[in-house]
């Protein structure tokens, strides 16, 4: 047998091995609506806003191009742009923090 660890199911501790896949699973984090994350890997082709700018809900923030589709990222609610983490022309992986709102 491999490495035996304690594994809690409904309050009972079982002695068992874990799998690599289980150990590498993504731990869930509560999404923060103030953080705009990429939802698909692609490239930032255009950014419409600047840090410190007041933006209304529904206005465009940037264009994330992926799979030959230009996706317009919109402001989710009225607010101020706190920080922009990407620049025009960069490639972004999935679930990357692109922009923060105040």
């Amino acid at each position, binding site marked *: 047998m491999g490495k035996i660890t304690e594994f809690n*199911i409904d309050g009972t501790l079982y002695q068992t*091995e874990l*799998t690599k896949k289980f150990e590498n699973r993504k731990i869930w984090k509560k999404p923060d609506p103030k953080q705009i994350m990429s939802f698909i890997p692609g490239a930032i082709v255009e950014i419409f806003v600047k840090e410190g700018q007041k933006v209304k809900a529904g206005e465009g923030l940037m264009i994330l191009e992926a799979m030959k589709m230009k996706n317009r990222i919109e402001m989710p609610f009225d607010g101020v742009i706190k920080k922009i983490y990407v620049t025009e022309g960069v490639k972004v992986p999935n679930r990357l923090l692109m922009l923060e709102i105040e």
Partner: protein
Amino acid sequence: MSLKRNILDLRKRKEKVLQGGGEKAIQKQVAMGKLTARERVTSILDEDSFHEYDLFVEHEARDFGMEKKELHGDGVIIGTGTIYGEPVCIFAQDFTVAGGSLGLMHARKITKIMDHALKMRVPLIGINDSGGARIQEGVNSLAGYGEIFFRNTLASGVIPQLSVILGPCAGGAVYSPALTDFVFVVENISKMFITGPEVIKTVLGEEISMEELGGAKVHSEITGNAHFYALSEYECFEQIKKLLTFIPWHNGKKAKAFPPKPPKPEFKIEDIVPADPTQPYDIRNVIKSVVDDSDFFEVMENFAGNIVIGFGRMNGETVGFVANQPMVLAGVLDCDSSDKAARFIRYCDAFNIPLVTLEDMPGYLPGVDQEHMGVIRHGAKILYAYSEATVPKITVIIRKAYGGGYIAMNSRHMKADFMFAWPTAEIAVMGPEGAANIIFRKEIMAAEDPDAVRREKVAEYKEKFANPYVAAAKGYIDTVIEPLETRNMLLHSIEVSSNKADRRPQKKHGIPPF
């Protein structure tokens, strides 16, 4: 005039075609550590049994300079032969001819042998080693893939379909193996992916090697696309031949029977399982202690190890085993193990192989990632597969059978034919700790020493419910057996189920939670 000239001409033509892509391309193939397509075919089949067809096929492409190219056999070998004296159909893509790329005639050769296999009701073995679609042939090569996929689906559940990945198998090409029953991969040789590393890099900027993206290990450990993993092509061929000894040639037949043999004495069933349900052991040893010659042929050994599936023989007849593995993740059911077991159950049901289920699991795996990955619909596949199966179905509850898992693992309620339990079996809605915390919540919270009361209540619950007799009193299990009786009870129950008829409502097909 004598026939001699014609015969010599034929021989000359054959000789030319048999060179495949020529000396240089063959050297390249060998340098990659790969056998040639013909070597593969002849290594799998009985000696001198291979007969090739369509070796004089030529492509019809006329664009992009293709009209000047001669591609022997159009990059694929098809034919018939025998394995252990029984007929099979086989095709092998020849990487030395235009990278084994699939054009219209290449695909037509494959579909011809597929049609043949289905009509003759013999297993189909497909060896994949191809760069993908032949771009110069455009939509014709896409049409070719489509015709193959359609036939894979048509043949599914009628004849066994085995896919052997011995080179690249990329893009749409991967869907033919994915539609077949068993996929074989070999370390360093097999590569399967929808989109290759280069495209991923240019489009997404993610850098990854072919091996890390879709190598043999990835598909046998992470994705679950492969069923058998081997270190060499020859080991892979032995796996293919061994698998074929366990399965019937088509869905109207039973697997070939072998002379019965007792299990090997080193597997002592009573010494394998600890009485404490939190202690691990290797369930495969329990299987080995009941099957003929202790010969258990595991399927998907490296994927979702919390459930074990595979074939063994009892009294010489093939049996499919589905067993929780307490040694890995405490044997829980989760998305991957549900997929793995459900597909195997459906395979056994389609091919008249009785199912034996060995149960020892604490339920479904809790967690956000599992819930969000869809453990509901994945888990439902097991319920569906067991309920749908009409082959003889026997369950032995070894220790834990909690909650939804108890229902799912071929319970009486899924119409198991025989339900046996060891005296160590615990059949309950959940484990004693969790149950006591809920039932006696108020008492525990109100107590001066909550831990002491909790321990007391857990013990009380264990005493009352953590045994097989409550379920036995309701007839949900047929009898409680001693571990040593397990093999005999299984042999007997399989024997008395041999004429089982279980008729279901007429329908076109069900709608399983794919």
